[in-house]
């Protein structure tokens, strides 16, 4: 059974995922070119994060988590490299990368439910970044696995929960053997 594609709050990651860190020219339509290539070649994207790179005017960096079971990684990289606006592709195997992702979650709570949530937040090292009389919004930055665990606990404690995650960004590990 192929793993399910990434969708919304499910953050299941395939065992054979790879992280591609793709430097692209900051031109109109570049994201569409990259995403379109993945869909028409039948490669699965699990998550995708885009932000301006060092040189804000010219380049952006797209971090793509790709299911390496859907196609041989070298085919994905080879086809991606043919896109004119793709300048550089770094393939980061999970073991050789540090990965981080950001999670925001809004929970609806009665006053009595707050205390378990607060201890959960404190335990995970998350932060409360917004609140009203009935609701509270928390944030957590961490590894995708840590976010998965936090999200699972939140879901257990708070029946009414809205979660958003950014998808991960990654850089090569400085000491790959560590």
């Amino acid at each position, binding site marked *: 059974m192929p793993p399910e594609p990434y969708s919304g709050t499910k953050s299941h990651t395939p065992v054979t995922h790879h992280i591609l860190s793709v430097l*692209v*020219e900051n031109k*109109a*339509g570049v994201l*569409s*070119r990259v995403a*379109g*290539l993945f869909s*028409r070649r039948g490669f699965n994207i699990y998550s995708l994060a885009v932000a301006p790179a060092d040189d804000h005017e010219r380049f952006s960096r797209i971090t793509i988590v790709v299911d390496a079971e859907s196609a*041989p990684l*070298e*085919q994905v990289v*080879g*086809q991606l*490299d*043919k*896109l*004119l*606006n*793709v*300048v*550089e592709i770094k393939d980061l195997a999970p073991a050789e990368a540090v990965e981080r992702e950001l999670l925001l979650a809004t929970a609806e709570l009665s006053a009595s439910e707050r205390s378990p949530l607060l201890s959960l937040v404190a335990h995970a090292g998350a932060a409360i970044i917004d609140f009203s009389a009935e609701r509270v919004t928390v944030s957590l930055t961490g590894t995708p696995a840590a976010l998965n665990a936090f999200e699972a606990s939140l879901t257990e404690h708070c029946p009414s929960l809205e979660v958003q995650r950014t998808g991960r960004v990654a850089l090569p590990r400085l000491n790959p053997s560590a």
Partner: protein
Amino acid sequence: MTGAQALIKSLENQGTEIIFGLPGGAILPVYDPIIDSTIRHVLVRHEQGAGHMAEGYAQATGRPGVAMVTSGPGATNIVTPIANAYMDSTPLVVVTGQVPTAAIGTDAFQECDITGITMGITKHNWLIKDPRDIAEVIAEAFYVATTGRPGPVLVDMPKDVAQSEVDWHDAPQIDDLDLPGYHPRTEGDPAAIRQAAELLSQAERPVLYVGGGVLKGRASAALLQLAELSGAPVVTTLMARGAFPDSHLQCLGMPGMHGNYTAVTALQRSDLLVSLGARFDDRVTGRVDAFAPSAKIIHVDIDPAELGKVRRPDIGITGDSRLVIEAMTEASRDLARADLSAWWRQLNEWRERYPLTFDAAEEGAALKPQAVIEALSANSPADSIVVSGVGQHQMWAAQHWRYDHPNTWINSGGAGTMGFAVPAAIGAKAGRPDRTVWAIDGDGCFQMTAQELVTARSEQIPIKVAILNNSYLGMVRQWQEMFYEERYSEVYLSPDLPDYVKWAEAMGCVGMRIDSPDDVVPAIEKANAIDDRPVVIDFRTDEREKVFPMVAAGASNDEIMVHPSQRDGA
């Protein structure tokens, strides 16, 4: 000057001698300076024709084809040729008009997102929003279309950009173009080339598996040297017919679904495939896991993404076909070579036992299409250019015409676009007016794009068209006969509707109808003597005739079906 003038001047500076196109609202400003330009414009009758003409021109000349159409339906009508050129790696520069920048995204009249539509079928495309970018974009477009693995590009030109005033500046030199993500590799890795030469010298059953990349790389002469030095047999794929002369003793002809027995089986039994500018297409490999099971693979391609896409090579070499073949020849010169005589004995035995064959026409019955093609080939100049549509006639033309020169066979290989022949032949003749150009077409294909013969007549582009009229969508009929229990569903076309002779005459062409074997050669001679207008010959051919050999879709190449007369017990 205006943006429109800058665009035309940029096309002139790129060496454009001809544009195939059709004007309309959004591209109107660009058509005005065409009147004063040195560039010839060929006014087509449908934008699809413009695209295929540009393809035929590019394949016949090796130069990029240029087409120009308006926005919306003009642009969508040329999508099929763009997809076709993408599949066959044909260099094309397509300029489309676009609604004014302020109207983009508003569902304006004749608006469509053509850069979005063609993203997956172009090497790259550009939407010009600033007239100061015109010179750079056109220079980049030609550079990208013609270098690396060639292919189509599209430049979308909004009307207000064409109308605005701009100071002319020359485009930067190629090295100064701002393309940080585009670095085509041409020189192959010397170590890998040396290894490849060694493998080739040691192989006992080698085959040079030659694809269209050898023509794109103008590597035919280099290939001849490598072939003769190595003594290895050569197969030329559908995209490479003519890349190596059919008359050469080492040429085994075409492999694939309708390849001849020896070419197909040589690949299957080989111990080393040297793939040169070919891409292990499913029409060549048959069932991939049963393809050439004991062969090591050397794969040479200018597109690194082709290496390992279908079959993992033992040695993969990214580079220009001519440069790599030349380097491989050099590296081979001093190597001792394995004895290929047993291999050649086997190959020659197959050649003798399973030549391409077909039944002779019965007395009074319809013509055999293969015989018509052999007569065309024998009675036309040796350097004639042959252009086909898609279907049975295409396979027979690939099998039975004798190709001894590169770039004399033009067809729609990857995409399989019916209707390709007539417009592509017009483009080829426009680019090579010195050559005889024959479109070998089917009756189904001809009806799709025949109106471009009006273009051919009015532009004085005297092509010749041989319609192999079997009154059916013949290839579909063949599959229905063989795989659908002779249940013929929606394939009958009628031999007389339309009347092809009257239709040809109505379009200003000479029309002939031939149904007797005795009249075939005289008609061909007459057609070849006419040089002031197009000629259409309606050859009435046998509807029962099927293309053999054949490897059924998804079957192993070992299960090749030869002509019925060559089967056991026949």
